[in-house]
């Protein structure tokens, strides 16, 4: 059934998975970030394929643009670009792989058992700004406003957390932290 799939979809999917794997396995956090950005790009491409043009753009702007830059920024700030992460033991990796694999297996199995063909009913233009905007500002206006409040709250929170308090400068050692 693979053969019947269109080439662009296959390629895109392949790239997506590959880069996602790199995100997870790369020892260098900066590489991870870059790989993740690449993944987001490929996902955006998927969105385009799926006729969700607005989301594709937003994905690029918000994720690849804003959030990932934030990550990079923090990495730089904390100077974590080097491979500082202590390597976990092998069995931990194996068990994590098994766990994740199990979940994968179960989800696919679940889908195989219960999956029904979803009626294909594509509608032209729902992914466009105009169409989405209409829905967003009519039916979903209250959640939309709430999202604004959420943002405000998270912004305040982030600022508050990031602020250096007086007398809190001294580094607390791990021992002290553990009490």
């Amino acid at each position, binding site marked *: 059934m693979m053969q019947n799939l269109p080439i662009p979809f296959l390629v895109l999917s392949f790239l997506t998975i590959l880069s996602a794997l790199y995100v997870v396995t790369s020892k260098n956090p900066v590489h991870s970030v870059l790989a993740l950005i690449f993944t987001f790009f490929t996902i955006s491409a998927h969105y385009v394929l799926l006729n969700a043009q607005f989301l594709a753009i937003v994905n690029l702007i918000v994720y690849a643009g804003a959030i990932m830059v934030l990550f990079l920024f923090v990495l730089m700030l904390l100077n974590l670009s080097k491979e500082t992460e202590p390597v976990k033991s092998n069995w931990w990796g194996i*068990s994590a792989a098994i766990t994740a694999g199990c979940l994968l297996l*179960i989800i696919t199995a679940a889908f195989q058992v219960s999956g029904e063909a979803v009626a294909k009913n594509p509608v032209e233009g729902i992914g466009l700004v105009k169409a989405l905007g209409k829905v967003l500002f009519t039916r979903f206006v209250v959640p939309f406003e709430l999202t604004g409040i959420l943002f405000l709250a998270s912004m305040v929170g982030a600022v508050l957390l990031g602020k250096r308090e007086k007398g809190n400068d001294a580094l607390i050692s791990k021992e002290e932290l553990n009490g």
Partner: protein
Amino acid sequence: MLTLMIFLPLLGFVLNGTLGKFLPKAISGWLGTAAVFGSFVIALMSFMDLTGDTTMPERIYTKLFTFLHVGNFHVDFAFQFDRLSAVMTLIITGIGTLIHMYSIAYMHEDDGFYKFFAYLNLFIFNMLVLVLGSNYLMLFFGWEGVGLCSYLLIGFWYKNVDFGKAARKAFIMNRIGDLGLLMGLFLIYDTYGTFEYQDVFKLVFAGSAESNAVNTAIALLLFIGAMGKSAQIPLYTWLPDAMAGPTPVSALIHAATMVTAGIYLVIRSEAIYALSPIAREVVMWIGLATSIMAALIGLKQNDIKKVLAYSTVSQLGLMFIALGCGAYTAALFHVITHAFFKALLFLGSGSVIHGMHHEQDIRQMGGLRKKMPITYLTFLIGTLAITGFPFLSGFFSKDEILMSAFAHNPLVFGLALVSAGITGFYMFRMFFVTFHGTYRNTHHGYDKVHESPLLMTLPLLVLAVLSVIGGAVNLPQYLGESISGGLHHLLSYDGGGQFSPILMYPEHAIELSHTAEIGLLVMAVSVFVIAFLYTRNKYVTQGAVPESDEAQAGMGKVLANKFYVDEAYDTAFVSPIEAAGDVVGNYVDDKGVKGFVDGFGSGSNFISRLLSKIQNGNIEYYLVYMVIGVALLLAFNLF
């Protein structure tokens, strides 16, 4: 009147118990005596009423109140004064009065003087409840009550630990019997639906032959009670130990009255026993075994009171033989005469002990007859009466028992005769060693030995007279039809057919020819003569003194150690129960049950400690668990 008769001693108890401390000893003592004497007078009057007038009903009945009434279960607090109760009451209050009087002198130095009289009065009260109660439960009341008083009085000198032990032993052995009695009562109630004597006996009388198995069971259970109270094998070991109490107590409780309660119970339940030959057979053989065994042990005892105690056990055994043979009158007759002469002997021994400054070992005595003439004389009469000297009271009563035994089974007669013969040996042995020979005590000089005061010798004289003439109560037929069998007539009197007599079943007429009768008499008398001559020769002519317990050998040692029954009971019952108590308390309960329960606690503690390992604070682990959980959830939904 009946109520007053019963409650006078209780009043005495209450007065002495509460105010006794503030009363002078004389008043307190005479108060107790007067209470019992009052009862005696009333009892005598009532007895006259009952027997003098042919129009009198079979009993005087008083119901005080309903004791318990639950559904079908109904028990009245009621008393009846019938012919059997009357005889018992007269013995109890009559001898009780004499012993009270005696105690005034005997106990005059004791700190607990008023307490002693309070207890004695309480005992008389309980004994009266026992014999005057109109139903089995009232009997049980008195039954337990006298056991309690016996406990209190045996342990009267409470500072002595051994006395306390003896008291507890008596109470507990009695309780074992009581349990049997109680079960018997339940069975009676189960079968006949009532505790009232009259109703029960009517039903028994009307009962079918099938009920005989039940009757046998009832009879045997009641007999277990009687075993405890009347000191029969296997529950007899408490009585010798009970001699720890003051001597008047031994005379009153452990010779004359309480121990005969078992006999009373069987006579009272004659209707039931008459229907179960098996039970009677058991009663007879146990009585026989007890009688011989106790008599044998009595041969080697050196404590004056212990000898008398074993003698009592032996005599009680004789009474049970009579009961087993169906000779209820003979048993009651022996109860009466035994009460006279055994009380006399105990009081006499008390007088000796008093005169000897609380020395009880006969080996320390000797030659007392010159110092204590009255005691000597009365003691002699008592000894002659118990050993069956012709025409004294014991002679008649014992012979009646022997004859009924002969009529029942010659083998039993032979064995009973042996037992009666041994009586002669140990009694004369004690008598001669105590009063004849030379004085042997080294602590107290011979000159310090003194005769007891009048207050003590007076009861002795009265009892001596009674011991001599007591046989008149129920003279045998060969002495003349008109004067014989008074007690027998009393108990089988039916008011000219108006009511059922105490003894519902006419006794087996003793079908003996006069030759046989006289032959038996000769045998009995010759046994007496042999015993007298042998002991006189050994202890008076040769002047022998019983050897000390350590010097005993062979059979003598076994006898001196009372067949090791106490030790056997210790190993067979006391130690196992104590060990079981220890094991159950320390292991089963502490380690087992509590351990099991605590196991839940420590188990959940252990599990929670295991589970808290999982909660190690590391988020990664939590994540893994979460993922596993999600996977499991999905998987469950899936399959």
